[in-house]
């Protein structure tokens, strides 16, 4: 059984988790152009790499970030969100 480590609950079966996709920086919806907003809404970086992704441990509702290699499915690290933890910098509000 494949395991993932929840930062709160420890190692659990992967079936207890859902992936919400790669971490992406949201442009300011008030000032963003339509093209930049469409890029944010639809486009993805689907080249295999070690990526930061949002994951949720559904039985407990814990949202956290996993660093996972999307070519081998190796989970390198999991941790709770903290300001400054994102590899892709958050855009200014």
């Amino acid at each position, binding site marked *: 059984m*494949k395991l993932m480590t929840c930062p709160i609950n420890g190692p659990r079966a992967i*079936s207890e988790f*859902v*992936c919400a*996709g*790669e971490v992406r920086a949201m442009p300011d919806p008030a000032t963003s152009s*339509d*093209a930049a907003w*469409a*890029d944010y*809404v*639809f*486009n*993805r*970086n*689907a*080249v*295999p790499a070690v990526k930061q*992704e949002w994951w949720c441990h559904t039985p407990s509702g814990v949202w956290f970030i996993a660093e996972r290699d*999307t*070519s*081998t*499915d190796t989970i390198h690290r999991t941790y709770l969100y903290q300001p400054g933890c994102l590899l892709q910098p958050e855009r200014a509000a």
Partner: protein
Amino acid sequence: MFTRHERLKPSYDVVIIGAGGHGLAAAYYLARDHGIRDVAILEKGYLGGGNTGRNTTIIRSNYLTPEGVQFYDESVRLWQDLSQDFDLNLFYSTRGHFTLAHTDAAMRTMRWRAEVNKHFGVASEAVDSQAVRAAIPMMDMTCGGHAPVVGALYHAPGAIARHDAVAWGYGRGADQRGAEIHQNTEVVAIELEDQGSGARVAGVITNRGRIATRKVLCAVAGFTPRLLAMVGLRSPIYIHPLQAMVSEPIKPWLDPIIVSASLHVYVSQSARGELVMGASLDPYELHSTRSTLDFAESLAAHMLDLFPFLSDVKVNRQWAGLADMTPDFAPIMGLTPVRGFYLDSGWGTWGFKATPVCGKTMSYTVAKDADHPLIKGFTFDRFARYALTAEKGAASVGH
């Protein structure tokens, strides 16, 4: 069956990336219908070794959107003559296709699909549970008591075919007309001239040398984002594995193709007697064709809900392919912002049935440098225009 080419030529009129059904079909129709024979098809693995050889071979046109129904209907028409066209037996077998509804909400979608289909002359109808029982008497209509079948969408033209032969037929036809198939030839870069908005294709760098060309058709699955990165484009495509499995061969008992969206099952019985089974996508992004026990367990459990008497039947093989998923479950085809770079992509879990019509429409698009009318709902720029082609209700079981 195929000509061996020792080396690449320094230039071709058209380079096609990917010797699967789609790429080979495009080469075939480029030569046959448009007289363009100076074509190289580059394949990093072997012919038909990607999703052409990994799907569950179901052919149907009972889609939901007008764009989808017309496109797949043309494909089914092409399929029906293909064995004669190739002089090669594709084992094309019209079986009828039942999409089971287990809830009133699902039944409403079936009626919707039936009405759209009939409007475009496609033979689909919503049928009640008695009709399903009469057609598939060996099925447990209560599905173990927890998902009773209330009706179905019946699509008489639903068919299966021998998938490898499709690649061989198109490949041989293209080869005989002068196109060159180069296996074990990986594209490592695509050369552009005039970067930015005026960018256009100048050549392709492979592990066997450089080719000069003005036109590149990208007809791969699973690797589309990597090829798009070579020309500096971003797209909504993301990659999930799709798994499937077959049982040991058993006596023929299942004539129609059975699909249940609620139970995440599709199944047909092949000419060899194997049950060919598939389910929904793996739940998260992964660029690997590994198989999982989770998949086999859950698919087997749902198969037993439908057909409890199969409990002693063994699973023979299990495998996976890489699916190019899109947000609206429709493909991404045609021209791109890079001139001379054409896409036949985003074929997710629904690409095999479209093989002939993709070859037809993409050969037209490449030859005339203009989108074929049938693919106008599937263009690369539809996302920037927020004009999606919402096909999720009919394209997959994972909803």
